[in-house]
């Protein structure tokens, strides 16, 4: 495995666990049900799903949660395993081995020309912990996700880190096969870049009934932005005389911000355990980022070790992940001292740097210990602070068996994304421990009879763990 592969692996490990969580956030119940779970969400989960449900559940609830989710678009899990040297996903589904596996042109030949995209969403606590372990800069606040709901009122604090990373096909070839001057015509940085948003939210929800069956709710959210970073890599400066390449990366960071959002919800118990539900998140919102920007810039040299043009060695072979990150030097931006790469990168920083309105509607049926939910989610095209997988239709089922809760579900997202999920919960008196996870793909063999794959490659996963104390619910 080359150093670049190590860089990629470390990046995936640090961000992905933070990435592998909030796929269908909030809540382990929702993740286990394939992103459904809004209709009968209760307690702390209801604060963000549908505040109207606070009026229907009652009782009290204290919750703590960890989780992460990540989605690779344009690449299969096996390809990722080969490029990063982890191993084959299909042969070791629950734990990649770290034996070096071959990565040759056949692996990267099938990647899309537009490159590969990694989207992640993680709890800030996990991301900060991971960064601390790796001795890397902490991306934002380490606030854990905690919440409390009493009766029809609830408050939840959540810290999140969202990332989008795009890597060109040609750069993945470089990672896979190493630098080869004979292939210099093939190397292209393309749209390689990244965007990271780190913020904490405090959401207060309130629900009330209107008559016996109808409930409405409202959620008010304060958003504290920790950092907004836009980064990109520029096409290399090529030195054909010495056959070396110089790649410049630029990241622009807004070091803080603030905003607010308003959610509304509605729930109607129709009859015999049937409930319809709808909510709108960020129906009103505003997000402002600090204008004191910091520019981080780094240059990496690719060259042939031992040649005169390579006195410091080949960065793409030598640099570890920490070295790679630490080479980015931050300087405050002043108007008259902007380089063109910094300016170009900054232009993307504030574009749609706010939260979109998200509409959800669903229906569910509950009888005895069984619940079934069908939920659709639509995301406003304006505002880019959301996950790639947010727009979807989810179907989930939950079955209680004495102290156990078993959950399963699936989702069909936009652009051919499919997900299957499952989860288990253990309830001992007021203590409830729930764990859920799932995988995302462009198509599952067993489901191909029902849902025709759209020939788009995805590889994603999510896992969420929550511990709750609750009681008194109706």
């Amino acid at each position, binding site marked *: 495995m080359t150093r670049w592969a190590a860089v990629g692996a470390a990046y995936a490990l640090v961000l992905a666990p933070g990435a592998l969580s909030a796929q269908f956030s909030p809540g382990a119940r929702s993740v286990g049900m394939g992103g459904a779970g809004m209709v009968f969400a209760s307690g702390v989960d209801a604060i963000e799903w549908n505040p109207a449900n606070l009026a229907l559940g009652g009782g009290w609830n204290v919750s703590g949660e960890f989780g992460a989710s990540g989605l690779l678009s344009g690449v299969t899990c096996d390809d990722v395993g080969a490029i990063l040297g982890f191993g084959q996903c299909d042969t070791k589904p629950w734990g990649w081995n770290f034996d070096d596996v071959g990565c040759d042109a056949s692996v990267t030949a099938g990647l899309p020309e537009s490159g590969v995209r990694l989207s992640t969403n993680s709890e800030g606590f996990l991301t900060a912990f991971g960064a601390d372990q790796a001795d890397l800069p902490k991306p934002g606040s380490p606030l854990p996700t905690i919440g409390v709901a009493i009766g029809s009122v609830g408050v939840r604090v959540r810290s999140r880190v969202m990332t989008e990373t795009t890597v060109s096909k040609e750069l993945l070839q470089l990672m896979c096969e190493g630098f080869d001057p004979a292939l210099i015509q093939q190397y292209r940085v393309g749209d390689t870049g990244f965007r990271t948003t780190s913020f904490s939210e405090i959401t207060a929800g309130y629900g009330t009934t209107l008559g016996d069956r109808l409930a409405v709710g409202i959620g008010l959210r304060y958003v504290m932005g920790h950092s907004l970073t836009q980064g990109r890599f520029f096409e290399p400066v090529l030195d054909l005389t010495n056959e070396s390449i110089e790649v410049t990366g630029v990241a622009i960071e807004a070091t803080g911000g603030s905003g607010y959002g308003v959610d509304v919800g509605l729930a109607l118990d129709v009859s015999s355990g049937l409930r319809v539900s709808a909510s709108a998140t960020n129906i009103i919102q505003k997000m402002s980022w600090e204008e004191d920007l910091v520019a981080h810039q780094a240059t990496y040299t690719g060259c042939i070790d031992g040649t005169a043009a390579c006195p410091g060695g080949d960065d793409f072979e030598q640099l570890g992940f920490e070295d790679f990150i630490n080479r980015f030097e931050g300087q405050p931006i002043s108007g008259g001292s902007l380089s063109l*790469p910094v300016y170009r990168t900054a232009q993307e920083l504030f574009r749609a740097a706010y939260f979109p309105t998200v509409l959800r509607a669903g229906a569910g049926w509950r009888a005895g210990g069984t619940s079934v939910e069908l939920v659709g989610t639509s995301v406003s095209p304006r505002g880019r602070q959301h996950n790639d997988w947010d727009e979807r239709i989810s179907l989930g089922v939950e079955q209680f068996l004495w102290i156990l809760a078993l959950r399963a579900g699936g989702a069909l997202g936009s652009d051919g994304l499919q997900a299957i999920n499952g989860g288990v919960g253990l309830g001992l008196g007021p203590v409830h421990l729930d764990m859920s996870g799932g995988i995302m793909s462009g198509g599952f063999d067993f489901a191909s009879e029902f849902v025709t794959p759209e020939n788009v490659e995805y590889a994603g996963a999510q896992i969420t763990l929550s511990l709750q104390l609750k009681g008194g619910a109706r």
Partner: protein
Amino acid sequence: MLVTTLNGCQQSDQLLPFELDPSQGQTVSVNANGGIVGLPPGFSIEFFSGTLTGSQLVTAQQRLDAFPSAAGLVVPGTAYDVGPAGVALSPSAPARVQIAVPSALLEAGDELSLTVALLQPGGSIVTDATSYDLSNGIITADVYELGPMAAVVANDAIALGDLADLPPLDGGAITPSPAPAGGPASAPPTRLDGVVFSANCSPGERSCFTSGIAKIWVDDDVRARLGSELILLNTTVDASIEFFSFNLASLPDSAIGHLRIDGDLRARINQVVASRDVGDEVTVHTGNGTDAFNPDATAISINGAEMRFEFTSQGDPEVIEFDVSGVGTSDLLTIQLEGTLEFENASGPPTEGTIVAHVRLRR
């Protein structure tokens, strides 16, 4: 529909805090530790540690006066005055200039000839090897002096031909100078009145492209590494050969001289236009010495279209093809030089490509 309706309630994009009026100049104090003077969205110049020897107020503003067109066609809106003009920068740590040149402003193929021209206080214009990022429309060049600068499509670009199309050279007679009046007709010329062929061209003076002094071809190995579209930019030819003695058949039997071609081989590598120095590969001088500008004489002999030099910097002996043709009252001597371009490989020996130049010298 509801989502569309709600879009109206969404906020608009936040503005950057440094959107500048490009017509306003920038003045920044830069010291020996380096700094950047930016004039977004079109221009920036970065000074590295050691680029300046001391603190200096550096100004940059869009140029209002026309930029001289001697070096080529100036891309509209890309001329900037950077001052104080004439301030010399460290040769070992030149400043890096970046100018936005949207590819839409260029004709097809112009990207290869795109370069940054610097107007010097004396009125001369210098251009340097540059790198052009087609994806982002940014040209990057190192400059060694401050002054007005612009992105120009250079007018001295020499397109490189395919080696398979190399025209043959036919040889010909190199005749001695006529004997001085009153002297013996059969007396060989002395070194002082030998036959001298020479050629000189450069970007700043007589263009090698317009003068036709140099033509160049490369083989498929070079194109496989650097792409099919190749040009030579900033070409300089400095050549002089004196045939100073002739045998009884009036064929030259000794010569002294040198021939050197310098330039930037420009290639489009995917989304980047980049340069490679060409110089040592197509340089030769006579004799065993190492000083190209003070060469030693060597014996020569001619056989058809081949001229055999007993001692040269390229080999002992070195056989060079040539052609002589008459133009008006003068003779043109075309010399064929062949060199090797080496390309490193990740493993194994370097790949060798061939570059051939025809240089036309005038008597």
